[in-house]
């Protein structure tokens, strides 16, 4: 039986009859994808805790964190799934990006292969993820731009051609980290919708999720 609608619902705040609206709140599932060691976990750590670890251990699995931000009159809660980048775990990725309203595909500006891999991820998302998914491309390790191999303009052009948000980020310095999440939050639809989920109920992936409708809406 279908239970709680999954992520992406909004906990509704009542619209006042005469115009002044109380805060809307939305919940979105966001997944980070990209080759291993490009800095996915570091980006999340910087965004969520404002920290940076020089030696971030490799993610073997999928870490889950939440972070809430306010844009205009909307409270946007991100449920962030930071996935393992190793190719070995590639086949498990759909379990995490399925039902996601947003994805950040990360590459390392010093690593051409990681950029090619990012393109493959984008292709896969376009083919298999929910059709309205908001995808951001993050060229991470921008603090090392003097030894870059992926040119800014090349990545930007690719992003434009594929309808992606694009920023070069640095989890180390914090450059553009909040901004990329904010840009995603702004781009996500926050219109009224039929489904919502109160209180973050059942926001986790679970085995029944395949059968459930997801939605990107708020009220």
């Amino acid at each position, binding site marked *: *039986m*279908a*239970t*709680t*609608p999954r992520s992406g*619902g909004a*906990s*509704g705040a*009542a619209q*006042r*009859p*005469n*115009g*002044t609206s109380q*805060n809307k*709140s939305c919940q979105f599932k966001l997944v980070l994808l990209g080759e291993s060691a490009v800095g996915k976990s570091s980006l999340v750590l910087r965004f*969520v*805790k404002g920290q940076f670890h020089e030696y971030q251990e490799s993610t*073997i*699995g*999928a*870490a*889950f*964190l*939440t*972070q*809430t*931000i*306010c844009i205009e009159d909307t*409270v946007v*809660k991100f449920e962030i799934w930071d996935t*393992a980048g190793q*190719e*070995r*775990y590639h*086949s*498990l990725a*759909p*379990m995490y990006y*399925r039902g996601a309203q947003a994805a950040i595909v990360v590459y390392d500006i010093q690593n051409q292969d990681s950029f090619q891999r990012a393109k493959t991820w984008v292709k896969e998302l376009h083919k298999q993820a929910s059709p309205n998914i908001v995808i951001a491309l993050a060229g991470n390790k921008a603090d090392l731009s003097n030894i870059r191999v992926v040119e800014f303009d090349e990545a930007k052009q690719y992003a434009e051609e594929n309808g992606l948000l694009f920023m070069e980020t640095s989890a180390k310095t914090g450059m553009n980290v909040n901004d990329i999440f904010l840009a995603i939050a702004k781009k996500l639809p926050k219109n009224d919708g*039929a*489904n*919502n*989920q*109160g*209180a*973050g*109920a*059942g*926001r*986790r*992936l*679970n*085995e*029944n999720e*395949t059968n459930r409708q997801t939605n990107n809406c708020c*009220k």
Partner: protein
Amino acid sequence: MEDEHEPTCRPNGSTSTGSGDDISATNAPPPPSLLQIVQKKFKDNEKVHSIFEAYQLKNQEHANRILAVVSSLSGGTYAIISLSIVRTPIRFPTDLTCTNVFPLNESFQILVDGNKGFKSQLKFELLTGDGKPATFYYYIMKSEKESLFFDDFYAQIVSFKMSMSDRHLSPDFELSYVWLNDYRQVGEVKQELKNRESEYTVYNNYKIYCATWNVNDKSFMNSNMNLWLSCSTEPPDIYAIALQELNNSTEAVILKDTRLDPAWIRKMLDSVHPDSQYEELRSVRLVGLLLTIIVRKGLKAHISRCRINSITRGILKMMGNKGAVAISLQLNEGNICFVNSHLAAHMANVAERNQDYNIIEKDLMFDDDQRHIRDHDHIFWIGDLNYRLQIPPDIPASWLRDKNNPFEAMLIHDQLLQERVQRNCFVDYMEGDIKFCPTYKYNPGTDNYDTEKMRAPAYCDRILWKGDRIEQLAYNSVMEMRESDHKPVYAIFNVKIKTRDEKKYKRVQEEVLKAVDKRENDNQPQITVDTTVIDFGVVTFNELAIRDFTVSNNCPLPVNFQFRIKDPPLNAICEKWLKVDPHNDTLPIDTERTIRVKLLPDVRSIRGLLKKIRTTNLKFDFDTLILHVENGADKFISVTGSYQPSCFGLSMETLCRTDRPMCQYSQEDIKQLMNDVTPDYRVTMPREFFLLIDYLHKQGPKLVGTFQTDKPQLPLVGNFNLVRDWLDTWSEDPFPGDAQSAAVALLLLLKLPEQPLLEPLVGHLLESKSKAEAMEYIDILSAPKRNVFMHLCMFLRVGIECQYYELHQVASVFGRILLRSKEYTRGDFNTRCSEVMMHFIGPDIMDNPPLIGNGGGNVQVSAQFLNTS
């Protein structure tokens, strides 16, 4: 066998599965019940036992709640979850949001407050140890038939709580309330924001202009109302204009006339302060009573709620010639109520006036949110309250008519002031000092007191208020308006209305959200695993291998974990060749659990395993397990090792590409051979197959009893693995089994490859009309398949001839193996399989041996085989 597919065609007349569209097309499903909608707010393993309708008072606001009694299978615990209603009617789970969570833990209490008055009997409190109790009220009448009555609700909670207390005594069962975190946050954020209200609340000044006039059934359309309505220096923000005796006609009284004449409103709008622009917010009329709220343009955007109601207190207490009309509104965060009342008339009726007041105060309610007059931050009670000046008999009646009397002297005799002192009415209300003449009763058109009935002058027309942060700036009557026997009265107030400073609010909200995020992220349950790679080393067909690993909980919470079910087509936590035990468990704090992983590539799973080996591009893992921690992260556990190839499961083509015993091949070698599509074969038929046939052929009468079924008994008997090794090593030793075990090995050799032997021509063969046609198809099979098939047929014919086994039996057994099909769905599959096989092993063929493209008779094939080996 699990991955065996039998044609699924059912005989005629088999029962339908009942999913028929024809049924659903005519009968639309009934709309879900409230209980079903509430259930959908929760997860699959959480059960809503019952719902109970209640309401809460929040900021003096009545808020409807649905209390759901929910249990969690994973936690083994119960809780009451309070849901607020986002909109009505409730049709989707989204129409409800969780506002509060009350775990039925040891500190939980439900307090019933039963020995007070009639109203408070319907009140109870929920208490969960940490923090103040939450107060709920309930209705005597329930509107949802699924909602429990209070007594049943109470009894159920008590019984659930007791059932858990019992389990607390059991040492090996730990109750967990972690599941509730999913429903907690919104309420938590709200509560925290409320606690910090003072940090973002400011009080903005608003000028409120209240005005009352008993027009004595006269038209006021031509009166100079700006004398009354624009007395303030600054333009007010809000006007509350109250009229009485608008229409005293019997008709209006009987019909309880509530119609509004736009001309009246226009007249008022024309008469208000000229220095600002105004618009009507709302008006309410009951017979002679009219209350109109006019607001400065632009203010509507800050008014979020506006409700009206009225109450009759006239003739028989039913007629509308007396009573009250009222408007309730919310301006920013402040709730304001305006009441216009016309209370019982005549000097002697003080008690009736008090009663009218008390009834209005008690009964007038803004229905949709159950709000009384008293449930407002700022209340303005305006009207012809009809209280008189009652002088003692020793003072001559004419004394009141002396306009030189000081107001204070007259007001000593004011019934309203006296009754308020006695606390008989308007308790806790305020009124400004009266510095004007009595407003009643004048000869219309004059400033002279009534000479017709010689009524005593009185301060009938009054404006009172109740609430914080209200300052009266003016309170006066307007003598110059002479149309009525009453003089109009007005009062101007400065009210500091509670307002949210949006910037500060946003800052506090961000802080609160951040704190909640942090707590949520920091308190995530976590487990550690002693390895993320389980290496099975070398794995062999039909050999069970076992590895254990340990998960431990060293976080400060009990943890529920489970292996996550993977996407279709697998729909299981792991591949078929693996078994994991347990699938899920709860780990109390500081405990660990051994997880056992068994790996067995057997008859059931070898096809899938070989396919995975063939198709995996990068590093091969037998599988990756996803260890999911409830409310936390996932860990991936790789199950790795290498598969030692065996002839079982490999296609005849692949086997014909080998040039040494299978034991000398690695997993990687065999992957290459499986992916090789060139027609370059090293032998005409697999040596393993030939050796088996050769051995079987020599068994003669011992073959009796073989080939009885295409489904060998599992597990395979003890010496099967010896047979496997004999074949995989091309052993020179004597065959390590007997006719029976060789027959089983032969069947498996033919049965286990991903493709049936006669593929890709199975479909054609099953449809073939004649022996000749079938033979043509056999002729175009790949050489290894064709040779194996023909060799097998010749071997079988010998056995049939010698009556070691029966033709139809063997045709059926081998037919189903060699012609296995997922596509052929007709009911005659078994028959067709036998028929096709009969062409090749049946007696008539014996007389006319078929022409074989490459090979021919038994002897010839063996010779060829030996030549190439």
